[in-house]
Each structure stands twice: as structure tokens, then as C-alpha cells.
């Protein structure tokens, strides 16, 4: 475990030394604070809209950070040829892939903690309540979502050569799953075979990322999610993280190290 953790440390160091991350980070934090602290006629329902906008902003930023950070990790190693001195050490390709995952996941987790801290502070000040456990559940599930997205982007990065094409495909797939994933089985029923069959297959194969999106529960001050459901959703996420990393490793272990 020392090697993946050491590799993760380098990913985190790169993450906080890159200027583009700070732009996104500061922009989201400032917009969250400004939107969260804006007052419109002291109307409680407006406060809910503001919470919704803040959470949407956090979701978009976290998605951008997760995808853009992870999509370029392995292509950059190959392009800059830093992979050569690294693999000349007692490091396996699995160590590289898993270390990259841990680094990106930790970085995404760090960004989420900051975003949610801002959001919780502002929302608590507005509503004079602090449902810590609800926020914790939302943050945790969001982090698992980030893990699934990062592992998916890492898999994409060993399949597609260019980080830009990988990022674009990841964004399209993830947004497609978030918007259409839960409806695919119903759409499948209205389509003739084989399209109907393919859609049904996709419904069961693709990860249902909407399971991790509990924004509505936070916005409408719903009670806590049952802990068993929370645990099952976490396990479901870990399953997909493992599956994507496993597929990524199968592809990466035979991949030529020369950047194409």
C-alpha cells in the first residue's frame, strides 16, 4: 500500500500546484457564499432555490474537478515519459493505476469538504439549523459518486489516447446517466428489438449515479436516509469503482508505454 499512497501524494501535490484548479475552486466558493448569503424578501422558499443553485454549482464543479484531474493522469505520464523512471522502480502498473485513483479521489474529497463546509455554514446561518448527519450523508454519497466518476475516467484514459476526448466522453456519459439512467428501462419498453434489448442491458450494466444525488433531500429538509440504504448505496459505488479499476488494469497492463 506504500507505493499507491506515495503515487497518490504526487497527484495531490500536482493538484494544489495547478493554477486552473484554484480558479474553479475560488469561483465555486465565492459563488456559493454570494448566492447563499443573498436575501430576497426574507422568503424561505427562495432560500431553498438558492440552496438548490448552490448544490448544483457544487455538483458541477466537483464533476469538472474529478473528470479533468483523473482523465489526464495516465496520458500525461506517458506523454511526459515520467512513467519510465516510475516503472523502473519496484512499481507495478496496478500500483500506478490505484495510486492515481487514490490521489484523485482524495483531491476530490478535499474539494468537496471545502465546498460543503461553505454550503453548510451559509445554509445554517440562513435557516438557523445544522442537520450535521444529513450533510454528512450527502457529502459521503457525493464522494462515492466522485470515486465512480474518477475510476471511469481512469478507465477511459487507458482506452482513449487524448485526455480531451476522454474528458468529453466521460462528461457525456455521466450527464447522460444522471439525466436518463433511471428512465432507460421504461424507454426500452417502448422501443422495438434490438434497441429495446440494448437499452435494457444498459439500464442494468451502467452505474445508476442518481443513487448518489441526494440534493433534493437536503433542499427540502427531508429526514435522514435510512443507514442501511446509505450503506447499500456505498457498497454499490465501491462495486463500480472496483469494476472500472479492474477493467482499467486489464487494459493498462498490456498497454504500450509510448504515447501515441
Amino acid at each position, binding site marked *: 500500500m*506504500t507505493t499507491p499512497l506515495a503515487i497518490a501524494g504526487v497527484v495531490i501535490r500536482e493538484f494544489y500546484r495547478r493554477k486552473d484548479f484554484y480558479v474553479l475552486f475560488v469561483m465555486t466558493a465565492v459563488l456559493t457564499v454570494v448566492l447563499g448569503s443573498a436575501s430576497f424578501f426574507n422568503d424561505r422558499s427562495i432560500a431553498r432555490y438558492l440552496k438548490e443553485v448552490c448544490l448544483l454549482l457544487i455538483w458541477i464543479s466537483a464533476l469538472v474537478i474529478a473528470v479533468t484531474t483523473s482523465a489526464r493522469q495516465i496520458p500525461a505520464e506517458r506523454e511526459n*515519459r515520467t512513467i*519510465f523512471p516510475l516503472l*523502473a*522502480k519496484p*512499481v507495478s502498473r496496478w500500483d500506478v493505476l490505484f495510486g492515481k485513483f487514490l490521489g484523485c479521489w482524495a483531491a476530490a474529497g478535499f474539494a468537496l469538504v471545502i465546498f460543503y463546509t461553505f454550503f453548510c455554514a451559509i445554509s445554517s446561518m440562513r435557516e438557523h439549523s445544522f442537520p450535521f448527519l444529513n450533510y454528512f450523508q450527502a457529502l459521503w454519497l457525493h464522494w462515492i459518486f466522485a470515486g465512480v466518476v474518477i475510476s471511469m475516467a481512469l478507465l477511459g484514459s487507458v482506452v482513449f489516447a487524448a485526455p480531451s476526448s476522454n474528458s468529453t466522453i466521460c462528461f457525456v456519459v455521466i450527464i447522460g446517466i444522471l439525466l436518463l439512467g433511471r428512465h432507460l428501462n421504461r424507454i426500452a419498453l417502448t422501443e422495438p428489438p434490438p434497441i429495446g434489448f440494448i437499452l435494457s442491458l444498459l439500464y442494468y450494466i451502467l452505474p445508476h449515479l442518481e443513487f448518489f444525488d441526494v440534493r433534493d433531500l437536503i433542499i427540502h429538509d427531508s429526514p435522514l436516509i435510512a443507514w442501511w440504504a446509505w450503506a447499500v448505496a456505498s457498497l454499490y459505488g465501491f462495486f463500480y469503482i472496483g469494476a472500472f479499476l479492474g477493467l482499467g488494469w486489464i487494459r493498462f497492463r498490456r498497454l504500450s508505454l509510448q504515447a501515441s
Partner: protein
Amino acid sequence: MDPILSIENLRVEYRSADSKQGSKLAVKNLTLRVQPGEVFGFLGPNGAGKTTTMNVLLGFVTPTAGSVRLFGIDARDPQSRFRIGYLPELTYYYRFLTIEELLRFYAKIFKIPRATAEKRIDDLIHMLEMDHARTRQIKTYSKGMQQRAGLAQALINDPDLLILDEPTSGLDPLGRMQVRGIIQRLKDQGKTVFFSSHELGEVESVCDRVAIMHQGELKKEGRVANLVGANQSLEQVFLSIIAA
């Protein structure tokens, strides 16, 4: 004595991207052994198969046939690389790290205890005269300094076998002299050095044995003193082999 590095009937074939061109044979049935404490020069013109052989040694490329063992362990096993140091031809390091951070990172990979690692980092930075640049990011280094950073990372684990791919490439005369000095010092410490170079004078002065490759085949191998006659230089021997 068991060889520290042994290559048996190594064959590496690359499939061409263009299917009409078929495959390219980069290394043909290469057999080579390097004994502990030797400085071994691996020579050949460009495209001779030297880099491919090194890539197999380091586990970057899977051989089509044959076996490669380091310290008796299959070169594809990452454990075989615990006691080796590798310096690539060009510097490929994380440009956003400082030399200290880079060496600490590699020390962690080799599981070197923290106190030992810190001492070794200090010693290496001092030996390579990089004290003034230890907190600067690698992207700000000159080419010569980057090459020295490369040497530092190759020596972080105090390796028993050092694999150097054209270590003096692109260095000024002072840098070359420094690298030669380091190789000589490692030799005096009983370390094994396996290196490729186009600087034949340099090879002649530091190597115990050499192997000359051409078009993927081993053309000549032996002690420098045996290959070089009384009125011949290694360069003349090399050119006669290549011309033949």
C-alpha cells in the same frame, strides 16, 4: 558466481502499425550475462536494439521469446527492480516537484526508512552539487541539472545494479567528467553498472567488458582489453564491426 543480469535468447518483435509492413525484429536471440562488480558497456549504432533490450530489462516491454533475469528474478516482476537504479537518456521527472520531493517520493517507493532517506537525500544533493537548487521545482533546472537530478533518483536506493541509458548525452564536458567520476566511484564500491553510450572513448576508459549490437544482433562481446588491439581504439573496432 551467479550473474546479476542474465539475458537468454532474447527476441523482441514489434508489430508494425501498418499491417502490410508486417512485424519488425528489434532484437534477435540475444544472450548476455553481466557479473557482479562489472562495468558493462552496451554499444551499437542507433536502431541496433540497445534501448529495446533496456526496455525489456526494466519490464517496459514484454519479450516475444527468451528470458531476462535480474538478481535471478524475472525482469517482468517488479520485485526484480528493488536493487536497481535507472537513468533514462532524457530527463523525465515530475516537473512540479523539487529535487527533495522527487527523491522523497522515490525513497517511499523503495520503502527506505525516513531517517535513512533524509540522510541519503542530503548526501546525494551534496554529492551532485545541487544544494543551491534543492527547493526549486525541477522545471526551473537547466539540462545539466536535470541530468544530475536523474542521477540522484537513480542512486536513491543505493542500487547494486545501475542501468544508464546514454548518461552523458547532452552534457557539457564538465558534466561528462562528473558522470564518469560517479561511474568510477560506483565501480570502486563494487557496484555493477550496465550502460549504453555513443561516447566510445568514455566507454573504453571506464568499462570492463562491452557488447556491440548491430541490427538487433550481438556482434561482439568481451573484455575491452581483449577486443582492443595494441594499435587500435575501441572506436576503430566498433566501426569495423558495423562496416562488416
